């Protein structure tokens, strides 16, 4: 087909306005939180001493880390939906969550005697953590990839990875409400495994799904 023919065909297809990709991404994020929250409430629920735990810095630190991760990943995703959006994007912001976690871990190392470091890091049910962070993050990952498909990212793999990190942040936030281990050493040892697994799945899925 000649380019001119293509142009007249495209022009004849009267542009019907579609809703903005940013709006869809926002809705997707809201739906992600609802679904991950529902999954947590319907499966294991928040830990019994939730109200008392909120008063401790270690418990709150977990949310500072996971919410920061979800928020920074979301802000980058808001750029990723546009073709030129990730040019010169502030990718360094994604390191805010790891930085908070590392700082908290450093404080923990200073507070605890060296003999108890191992116990704090291994915690009581790390296998729960490894399974539930990805489990709660699965729906956000799927919804996030769907929302990105409505946009036009020119970095499919990187965008998929960011969706995975967002899903990991949301999944870990709800898992943290259930998780009985609060030591930053435990969080540092186990949370990243599930989150990075979601990131990896997101990157691989993104490479296939987010091309256009």
């Amino acid at each position, binding site marked *: 087909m000649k*380019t001119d023919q*293509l*142009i007249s065909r495209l022009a004849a297809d*009267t*542009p019907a306005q579609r809703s903005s990709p940013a709006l869809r991404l926002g809705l997707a994020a809201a739906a992600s939180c609802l679904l991950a929250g529902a999954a947590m409430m319907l499966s294991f629920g928040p830990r019994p001493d939730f109200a008392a735990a909120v008063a401790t810095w270690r418990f709150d630190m977990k949310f500072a880390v996971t919410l920061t991760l979800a928020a920074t990943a979301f802000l980058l995703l808001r750029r990723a939906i*546009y*073709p030129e959006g990730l*040019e010169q994007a502030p990718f360094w912001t994604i390191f805010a969550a790891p930085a908070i976690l590392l700082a908290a871990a450093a404080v923990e190392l200073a507070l605890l005697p060296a003999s108890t470091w191992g116990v704090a890091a291994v915690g009581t049910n790390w296998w729960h953590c490894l399974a539930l962070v990805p489990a709660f993050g699965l729906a956000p990952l799927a919804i996030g990839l769907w929302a990105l498909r409505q*946009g036009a990212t*020119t970095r499919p793999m990187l965008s998929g990875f960011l969706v995975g990190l967002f899903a990991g942040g949301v999944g870990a936030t709800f898992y943290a409400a259930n998780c009985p281990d609060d030591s930053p050493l435990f969080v540092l040892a186990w949370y990243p495994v599930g989150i990075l697994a979601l990131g990896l799945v997101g990157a691989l899925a993104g490479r296939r799904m987010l091309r256009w």
Partner: protein
Amino acid sequence: MAELMRAALSGDEAAYTSFLRRAANLTRRAVTRRFGSMLASGTEDVVQETLLAVHLKRHTWRIEEPILPWLFTIARYKAIDACRRRGVRVEVPIEDFAEVLAGPDETGRLMEETQHMEMAVGTLSGGQQRVVSSIALEGRTIKETAAALEMKETAVRVAFHRGLSAIAQRFGRPA
């Protein structure tokens, strides 16, 4: 161009045609310059794929943002994609990749150039402006322009040359 696209998004078919023609020309120039050696005869395929992508993804242009970075990023994405598809068997020297990696600069230069062209054409009076932008920016022939603007071919020729010399006078030698 942004105005054309805004008009197009609110249903103006003629503006959309104009926009797509300009987009096709800009893409052709940019792709030829940057990827011509790798794509050779495939350049026109990339132009068409870019136009199709522009059409399908037009909702990802934010109407308050400049349109050229959006267009050129899509064109680059499609061109790199086409290079990769061919690159499976074709040996690509590393210098070419370096050039791809250095992409944004080149895109910026093209963008500046295009903006200058548009600005220069914008300084012309109504009739000359329509003729010059139809021929120089949208790549129509003199015949097509005459038909589109309902003018005689000689009148189009005269307006085109007067327009170009007006630009030359104002901005130095025409590009």
